[in-house]
């Protein structure tokens, strides 16, 4: 067959290509190129939209009929499960780290703060979208109450769920932390958050993808850098799979 050499040649080229690609992917040049592209997107988005520019909000009629749960949809921790059945009477949300006045709030106290209600779209990194109505206090209000110290550059969310043996966490910078649509939601579509959607408290960071929307939040931590947290990439999926820290694209 005349076809054979050509085929093996093609296979050879493809294999060389694949080998070259995996080398390229792991090279420092590629990593710095990816980082530059990611920073470029973040800087451009914020230059065009402004730091406080709002994500679109929808009407009640535009909500999706249900809201998909993804990633962790249940929490194994026995204390969590016990609290879930009782409505989280003893659940505490801590605000800690680089703050002058650390806080530990009950769910009732979180609900008593000034509230924001927003109907927004949730975009998963995989491509799907759902629309829901969220309610909760703005993160800015909590950070102001705890008095964030100078030198804090990021806010880290510590979560109760464990995936692949690791604690879920996420982080955002101060621009998104003080964005008006960044809220700690306790309500979805008028009901307390279901377990699959992050009961009792989850983050909404509306200008970023789903993996930033930390669920089952236990603590909000102001930090100088996230280098020493997890594997140092700023979030669970960033550490585990190498997802971009800026999830705005």
């Amino acid at each position, binding site marked *: 067959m005349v076809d054979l050499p050509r085929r093996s040649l093609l296979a050879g080229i493809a294999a060389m290509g694949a080998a070259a690609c995996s080398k390229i992917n792991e090279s420092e040049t590629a990593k710095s190129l990816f980082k530059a*592209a990611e920073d470029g997107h973040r800087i451009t988005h914020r230059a*065009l939209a402004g730091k406080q520019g709002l994500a679109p909000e929808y009407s009640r009629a535009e909500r999706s009929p249900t809201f998909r749960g993804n990633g962790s949809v249940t929490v194994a921790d026995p204390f969590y499960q016990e609290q879930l059945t009782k409505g989280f009477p003893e659940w505490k949300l801590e605000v800690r780290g680089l703050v002058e006045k650390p806080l530990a709030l009950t769910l009732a106290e979180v609900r008593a703060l000034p509230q924001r209600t927003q109907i927004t779209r949730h975009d998963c990194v*995989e491509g*799907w979208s759902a629309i829901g109505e969220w309610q909760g206090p703005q993160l800015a209000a909590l950070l102001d109450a705890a008095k964030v110290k100078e030198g804090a550059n990021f806010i880290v969310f510590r979560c109760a769920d464990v995936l692949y043996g690791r604690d879920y966490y996420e982080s955002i910078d101060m621009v998104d932390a003080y964005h008006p649509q960044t809220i700690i939601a306790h309500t979805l579509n008028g009901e307390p958050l279901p377990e699959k959607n992050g009961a009792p408290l989850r983050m909404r960071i509306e*200008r970023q993808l789903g993996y930033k929307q930390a669920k089952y939040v236990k603590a909000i931590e102001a930090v100088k850098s996230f280098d020493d947290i997890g594997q140092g990439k700023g979030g669970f999926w960033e550490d585990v799979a190498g997802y971009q820290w800026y999830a705005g694209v």
Partner: protein
Amino acid sequence: MKKHALSTRLWHWVNAAAIIVLFMTGLNISNAHRYLYWGDYGFDPKDAWLSVIKFPGWATIPQHYNLALARDWHTTAAWPFGVGLLFIWVAMLVNGHFRRDLTTTPRDWTPGAVIASVKAHSGDGAAHGYNPVQRILYGMVFGVLLPLMLFTGLAISPGFQAAAPWLLDVLGGRQSARSLHFIAAWGIFGFFVIHIVLALIDWRLILEMFTGGKRADAAAPPAPPEPDTMPPEDGAPAHG
């Protein structure tokens, strides 16, 4: 006078590389959620208008499923693609490539003009300039497919929507924009296949995209005034 301006040649090869990376990483990203929807939301396969096949490893970058790396390549290659598209549009408008080669008249869209262009093209290559089929095809690529690719890509980025919420409205919602992104990608792929096949029939065309080549009509004997130098029909009266 070169057949292809330097700006055209530079853009052509940078864009070719960007588009190959974007397309093949795009297929990898498609594998993450293989359902397309219309409207703003969509997550349930039973609401999908299209269930997409799982693209095999040989067609994707990287050659196995890796959403993080595919996205890194995709959002990186988006820069030369997007900036390049702006660059080539400005260059085409400034150097006259657009007006000369890509604009059409109603007559170019008639079946007769299409048949004539195909006949001229299959001849001895004596035809010069862009024939109606080329004008229409390249016009669609530059005017519709490439910009649609860019704008749908921007629209599905949650960080960009705060800058241009109107874009999502124009495109019919985020999942519609995602569907159009997919459709336009295959439209460009279709053009890519035709483009490669025709270029391979006469490999000198590929060489010319490096060297610039020579414009056929520049060497021609004294030519009659080109149609686009004539005064517009409904304009001022003819000379003197």
